């Protein structure tokens, strides 16, 4: 046990005296930025894809768009996030002659990746909304898109809120691979502390605890949100 308390001492020393805490703060900030912005992009793009996939397909354009979306979803669900990060950073950027930081790349890749997953959830959510809602809106003389935006999508989002929360949680957890493209996340921070104290046990344990606390906070937030959105279901 004495051994372990020594390890803790060494961790604390590096954490405070060698600016370890700054690295951790930065890592935490990047983790949250990547996960939150990734989720926002994912929701916007995913909703768009889902809508394209439920549009009635009498005409040619919706059919073509649908095929494009199917391809997109297949591509992003069929490859691991790390591979997508590496391809984006080391293949796409040079080809397009763009310059981006690791964090920016991670935000986009996380957004594009979660859009593929969220589009599937959203499609199921949209299909779970009573078709009578669309009918009533259309019968009033509103177009397909306005009814989608005002009536169907809000109900679909409410239906899939728990799964959307799970997606956010897995984005948070998956940020642990963004150091592959040079973004400084929690893993980078604790790896720094470990390397400087020649001791990895405590840093990685603390890292695990931080992830768990993050996930617990998010789960709580989702519960609260569900409750406030549940208004329209409650009898009172």
């Amino acid at each position, binding site marked *: 046990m004495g051994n372990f308390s020594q390890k803790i001492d060494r961790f604390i020393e590096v954490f405070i005296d060698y600016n370890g805490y700054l690295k951790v703060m930065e890592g935490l900030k990047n983790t949250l930025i990547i996960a939150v912005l990734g989720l926002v992009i994912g929701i916007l793009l995913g909703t768009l894809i889902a809508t394209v996939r439920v549009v009635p397909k009498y005409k040619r354009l919706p059919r073509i768009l649908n095929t494009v979306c199917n391809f997109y979803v297949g591509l992003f669900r069929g490859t691991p996030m790390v591979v997508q990060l590496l391809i984006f950073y080391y293949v796409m950027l040079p080809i397009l002659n763009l310059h981006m930081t690791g964090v920016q790349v991670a935000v986009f890749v996380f957004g594009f990746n979660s859009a593929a997953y969220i589009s599937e959830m959203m499609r199921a959510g949209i299909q779970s909304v009573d078709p009578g*809602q669309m*009918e009533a809106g259309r019968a*009033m003389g509103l177009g397909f898109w306005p009814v989608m935006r005002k009536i169907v999508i809000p109900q679909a989002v409410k239906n899939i809120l728990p799964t959307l929360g799970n997606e956010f949680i897995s984005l948070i957890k998956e940020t642990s691979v963004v150091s592959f493209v040079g973004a400084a996340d929690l893993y980078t921070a604790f790896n720094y502390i470990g390397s400087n104290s020649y001791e990895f046990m405590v840093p990685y344990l603390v890292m695990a605890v931080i992830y768990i606390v993050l996930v617990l906070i998010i789960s709580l937030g989702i519960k609260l949100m569900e409750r406030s959105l549940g208004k329209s279901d409650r009898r009172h």
Partner: protein
Amino acid sequence: MIDVINLEKQFGQNKVLNGISVTIEKGDIMVVIGPSGSGKSTFLRCLNCMEDPTGGQIIFNGENLADLSVDINIHRRHMGMVFQHFNLFSNKTVIENIMLAPVYVGCSDLKKIKRKNRSTKIKNLFSSSSQQELLPVPMTKAQITANAKKQAMELLDRIGLADKADVYPSTLSGGQKQRVAIVRSLAMNPDVILFDEPTSALDPEMVGEVLDLMKSLAKEGMTMVIVTHEMGFAKEVANKVLFMDEGRILESGAPDEFFGNPGNQRLKDFLSKVLS
């Protein structure tokens, strides 16, 4: 008001409407009866092109709605529709349900005028000789919303549900839901309202309140097309009754002769079944 000429509808190989011709005049209360699966709902839904007809014409305000190039949304704003299962928007409160279409239509007309004015202004910048007039902007968005709200409250007052304005539809009884759905369609000041079995999903004790509201609309001269199994209502309120079977109108007429002296054998069988 609506001229239906030789209307046909088929789903795949299944021919559901086999040439229906009927004229709906202003102020008509037309009741459509017939056995289940005879195409009553399909007929009604073709009138506002919720189902696109596969043949024939529907002439409404001088335009053929069956022609896919007409802007159907414009015409639907003049045709209310009331559904068997109410279809109130469950993410909107009662008053929001009623205000939604008037506010949407008001604001989208406003946007069109503003867009037109912007392009006129730009044109005026480039031509010093001929300055075009800007279109008058009738109301602001806030005024549109305020008007819609006032009208919605009046409609809720009319059905005695003003105190339910801010609750969600899930908290209402079936009869209340259907009455809200009816005044929701009234909010657009439609020329005609289409009802598809408005009381079939209701508990028996709530049928009366919905039929009473429909009767009061009839008294005010609202044009209505009603699919229903309420024969008493048809006899009392309708001025035309149609009997449909297998996608055809087998008999039509004023309720007195229609019910008093039915000529068609199938209609006799049907009436003896539903009236017994």
